[in-house]
């Protein structure tokens, strides 16, 4: 192929996508920044950003009232619930990925299909089904009282939201870890145990380090949707406590686009910094290995 045709092909194949990516990926993000730093009349202002950090509201817990930073509290709560969900997903998912990767080929494909089926169900309906399970008069409580185990109140608590997040995003943790583990060279594991490495050490010193790329992508794939969700908290949290996604959605519904953009902008910056840090950590680990 001569250079002229190569360049022509390149231009013909790349131009539509490049134009599309600039128009609909890059420019919209610039609009987030533009709205975040302007007021209703599109004059430059820092008000939206500073409102996120300084706005306060009064919390009344019956006896005492105290003033808290509204959005900082919301953000910390989102972060806390997202981190808990991610850890639960990892602790539950890692052994499953390991079991799957070592099962027979047929079992592997069956389990893979089973894990993916819930992902294909609409996530709103799945979450709603959890609401009917966890309600005070719901299926779980009916089950417990039939067994004379008493009732539990779980809907509207942070645990209910965590259950919802874990349920909805669990496959995103298992799949990347599984795909890395399935590719692991069995000979490597055999070599380790042949050389006298006990079972648990093989896991800790051979399998775990090699599976870290999968773990990291699993963590991002669970952490990011759970930190930004707004439906799960509305349904399973009974709308009692807001998450950062609820804050953005609420401002959008109230047609307060500039403040919605400001919250989105801050969330985006924080996530970008986290991702960059994690990437750096992963690279250092790879170099060390």
């Amino acid at each position, binding site marked *: 192929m001569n250079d002229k045709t190569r360049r022509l092909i390149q231009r013909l194949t790349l131009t539509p996508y490049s134009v599309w*990516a600039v128009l609909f990926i890059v420019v919209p993000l610039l609009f987030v920044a533009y709205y975040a730093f302007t007021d209703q009349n599109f004059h430059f202002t820092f008000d939206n950003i500073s409102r996120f950090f300084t706005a306060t509201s009064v919390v009344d817990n019956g006896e005492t009232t105290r003033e808290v930073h509204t959005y900082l509290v919301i953000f910390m709560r989102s972060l806390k619930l997202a981190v808990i969900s991610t850890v639960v997903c990892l602790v539950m998912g890692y052994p499953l990925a390991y*079991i799957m990767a070592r099962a027979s080929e047929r079992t592997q494909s069956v389990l893979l299909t*089973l894990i993916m089926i819930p992902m294909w169900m609409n996530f709103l309906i799945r979450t709603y089904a959890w609401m009917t399970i966890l309600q005070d008069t719901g299926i779980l409580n009916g089950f417990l009282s039939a067994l004379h185990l008493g009732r539990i109140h779980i809907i509207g608590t942070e645990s209910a939201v965590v259950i919802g997040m874990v349920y909805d995003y669990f496959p995103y943790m298992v799949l990347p870890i599984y795909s890395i583990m399935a590719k692991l060279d069995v000979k490597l594991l055999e070599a380790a145990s042949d050389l006298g490495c006990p079972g648990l050490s093989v896991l800790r010193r051979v399998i775990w380090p090699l599976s870290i790329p999968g773990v990291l992508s699993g963590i991002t794939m669970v952490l990011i949707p759970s930190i930004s969700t707004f439906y799960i908290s509305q349904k399973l949290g009974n709308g009692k406590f807001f998450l950062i996604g609820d804050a953005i959605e609420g401002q959008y519904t109230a047609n307060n686009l500039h403040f919605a953009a400001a919250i989105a902008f801050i969330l985006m910056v924080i996530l970008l910094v986290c991702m960059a840090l994690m990437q750096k950590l992963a690279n250092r680990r790879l170099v060390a290995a």
Partner: protein
Amino acid sequence: MKMKRASKIYTALIMIFLFAPIAILLVFSFNEAKSLSVFTGFSLKWYRELFRDTETLRAVLNTLLLAVSASLVSTVMGTAAAVGINKLRNKVLRSTLDSVTNIPMINPDIITGISLMLMFVFVGRLFGAATSLSFWTMLISHITFCLPYVILQVLPKLQQMDKALPEAAMDLGCTPLRAFFKAELPEIMPGVITGLIMAFTMSLDDFVISYFTAGNGFQTLPIRIYSMTKKTVTPKMYALATIIFFVILSLLLLSNFYDEEAMNKRRQKKKSKEKQPQAPNVKLKTQN
């Protein structure tokens, strides 16, 4: 390798966790009463009601229309882009394109949705339109978040492909376009198909981005479900979920069946090849 007992129990527990809500959906879609937590008797009345609900049926059609158009456009554009990216020699341009492609996958859906909505609203206001959100803004948004998945499926296939293949076709007199369709495309077809299927399912299932970019006139199924769950939900929605479940299940079984057929054929081919004497595997020893 047989699974150990502990592994089996663990896997079973997780499967119970994953499928309990789905089982409940299935059971309560046949409930006689309106309740979603007390089962009073078997009835098909919610299915009948579902098929009488024209708004939901229209939403199903809308969703399919949107998913088909978005996945086709993003597959064609994404495959072309992957071919272009693969040939790109300028390193700076390439890494810039790679990072831009990653943005919609890394960004939370809510930010992608908000960012597109802000742009549509702003541009719409420039042209003096009262509302700029419509089927078209949704289509643009869906194509945008589907594109990276197509590119990421096709690009590795292009990298695995023998670079001499299209060149040989052209040396033998093919035009570049013909060489692409005759030599290159069949090689990367599995990636293109996977990309298409992923784009289709992503578009079908998307709620968050659609929620922010949807116009008043055009409602997709997830948005319809969202407005249904804002009021009291009847088992009608579960009937809908049950139908979706069985459609997905049969599609998955069908695709598994075809995969197995293909695998069997490959195995047979391999067996006939294996009869020829093989050189001893020396590679093992040199690896350490």
